[in-house]
């Protein structure tokens, strides 16, 4: 890399770092508005082949966005009776809770200057580890409320541990062999899916079910609902889990901003040379930050088991929505039935992974 390129890149970095919060918000808003416009265009175009009696464009983008937004929160509070604890709201918050963990996972790696595209795999293996750990621990632990208090940590720790190990692999490969973590994490997603399928079918299969899944964990091992708040119990959403996620965000924020580990992590993400000069062992830091990132993804998997499914399944996460839901009525936009569910159905499995405002990782490449 020539000096000129280096200067160019540094200037860009400086520009990003000196950008005020206002500028950043403006940039993000601009990107959001642009993507909404592109989305509207896609809706318009996809309405052309549909049959709705004469009109060229069958789908109205504004209507689609209206449905997407208010469908996600269960109706428009201004025009109809609306309660914040309705079914759609619970579904949305359920997905939000999982996304908080996976998003946090990506964010931690990102702060350290790495792209963790492998959150999907960490989540898949984390969910299996959680289910297996809880199932094995159940006979040795009391049931009832005490069981709840003991089994949930067991499950979360197991998910975090396996997710962490799975995240550490690409971290170590990048640190010690300079293998591009974007590609290795994508590959490890494929591998995780294969491993979990084999482990499920060969060792942990629920004999009573034709589907590839583990037996169910005891009911008392599920993350409990808060009785008073009153989200509909027929949807598996627990406010406690959401609060746990938010608390974890606070904890990660604290670690990144207030501890020396966090300082080293952020410095090596922004100025690797400076961090190295300051005495940071950047190789070890790559491994530890990817471990932390993987552990967070693994906890996301734990919550799938402990909050949503009560078991590990071969098809978790991105596949979930495909198992359910009737075919959409003809002539209506495919998203109209239930926005969150439908919208998830047409996105790739890896939708968990995209960091907001993704920026470059330039470190590992040779200059």
């Amino acid at each position: 890399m020539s000096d000129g390129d280096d200067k160019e890149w540094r200037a860009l970095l400086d520009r990003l770092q000196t950008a005020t919060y206002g500028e950043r918000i403006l940039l993000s808003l601009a990107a959001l508005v642009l993507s909404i416009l592109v989305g509207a265009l896609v809706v318009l175009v996809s309405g052309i082949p549909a049959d709705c009696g004469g009109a060229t464009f069958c789908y109205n983008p504004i209507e689609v966005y209206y449905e997407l937004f208010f469908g996600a929160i269960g109706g428009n509070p201004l025009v109809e009776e609306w309660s914040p604890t309705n079914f759609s709201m619970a579904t949305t918050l359920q997905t939000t809770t999982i996304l908080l963990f996976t998003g946090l996972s990506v964010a931690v790696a990102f702060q350290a200057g790495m792209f963790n595209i492998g959150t999907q795999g960490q989540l898949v293996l984390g969910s299996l580890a959680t289910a297996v750990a809880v199932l094995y621990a159940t006979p040795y632990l009391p049931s009832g409320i005490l069981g709840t208090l003991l089994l949930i940590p067991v499950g979360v720790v197991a998910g975090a541990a396996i997710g962490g190990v799975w995240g550490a692999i690409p971290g170590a490969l990048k640190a010690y062999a300079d293998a591009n973590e974007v590609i290795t994490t994508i590959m490890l997603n494929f591998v995780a899916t294969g491993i979990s399928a084999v482990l499920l079918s060969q060792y942990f299969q629920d004999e009573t079910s034709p589907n590839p899944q583990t037996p169910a964990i005891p009911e008392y091992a599920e993350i409990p609902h808060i009785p008073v708040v009153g989200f509909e119990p027929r949807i598996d959403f627990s406010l406690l889990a959401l609060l746990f996620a938010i608390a974890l965000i606070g904890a990660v924020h604290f670690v990144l901003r207030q501890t020396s580990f966090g300082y080293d992590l952020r410095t090596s993400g922004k100025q690797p040379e400076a961090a190295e000069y300051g005495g940071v062992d950047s190789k070890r830091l790559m491994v530890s930050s990817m471990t932390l990132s993987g552990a967070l993804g693994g906890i996301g998997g734990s919550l799938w088991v402990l909050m949503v499914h009560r078991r590990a399944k071969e098809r978790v996460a991105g596949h979930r929505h495909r198992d359910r839901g009737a075919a959409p009525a003809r002539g209506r936009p495919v998203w109209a039935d239930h926005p969150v569910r439908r919208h998830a159905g047409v996105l790739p499995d890896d939708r968990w992974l995209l960091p907001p405002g993704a920026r470059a990782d330039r470190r590992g490449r040779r200059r």
Partner: protein
Amino acid sequence: MNKGAGRTYLTAAVGVLMAAVVVFGLAFPDSTAGFLLHVATRPSTTERGLRLAVPIALAAVGGIFAEKSGVINIGIEGLLIVSAFTAVVATHLLGGQGATLFVPNVWLGFFVGVLASVAFALLFAVVCIEFKADQIIAGLAVWLIALGLAPFVSQIIFGRRNTESVPTFGDWTVPVLSEIPFVGPVFFDAGPEVYIMLAGTGVGWYLLNRTAFGRWVRASGENPKALDTAGVDVRLVRYKSVLLSGVFAGLGGAGLALGHLGRFAGGGQTDIQGRGFIAIATYLFGNYNPLGALGASFLFSGLEAIQLRMQVQGFAIPSELVRTIPYVTVIVVLVLVGRTRIPEAAGEYYDPGED
């Protein structure tokens, strides 16, 4: 670790492994190795291996051009998806069997598929070269957009994620030569996409190593400043190279769809199943040489062909585990040879205006 040695070790390991299977298989014909040898040496396995190598080898040649010119294109997985899907849809919309304007619909569909891939590559090129976007992120975006767009469009046209079946290419049989035992049925009685692959990698090699354009491509990746000083437009060279990667990946994707699949399943990782990423590993393994990449592609596709065969025979290997072998191999290749000869300026934006 010395990365240059990495490839040597890997090649040696593959060689030893293959030799072990051959020796052990010959000595104990009833063992697993014996069966493996039996399967691997069947002409039908080789034939299928060639077919399955098409998308990998051609995408690898495309990736070589982009990366050699200084633009890392990890979006070739997306280009494969787009071209395969579009080729099937175009063939379906033209009416499947039959011809339009005396050109068989399958071939028109093939052509449209390649065009779609080139269009996506152009988008990628504009974002990377014109707007200086990070190449890795832009490549990821190409992949993710394709991964979402194919099932989405399929939903609109067919009402479900998977397309309907379309007719495929028939085999092209070369008279006389196809009578040669083993070699004949494998190389002279194959689908046209296999000939396209063999010709394409040859053309790619010639273009890169024996023409002025090829020299510019390599210079644009190694030392763009020098190329610029010599009076060649670096941007233009990079544009052409990325578009070429679209052409090659498009040939591979459309060839897989219309030569082998005959339909396109859009669920999960789609029918492409990470072959674009495997292609990246093959050209790293082949040290950016199209012919080397072709050879490495056979390793992957041969493995797939053998695995398919063994599954048919009801061999008790968990197929999910066998299916992960290529992906593990990609990681091993990246670890051992990932960095050997990355072009000096790959991944960097080149600004001709600066001092």
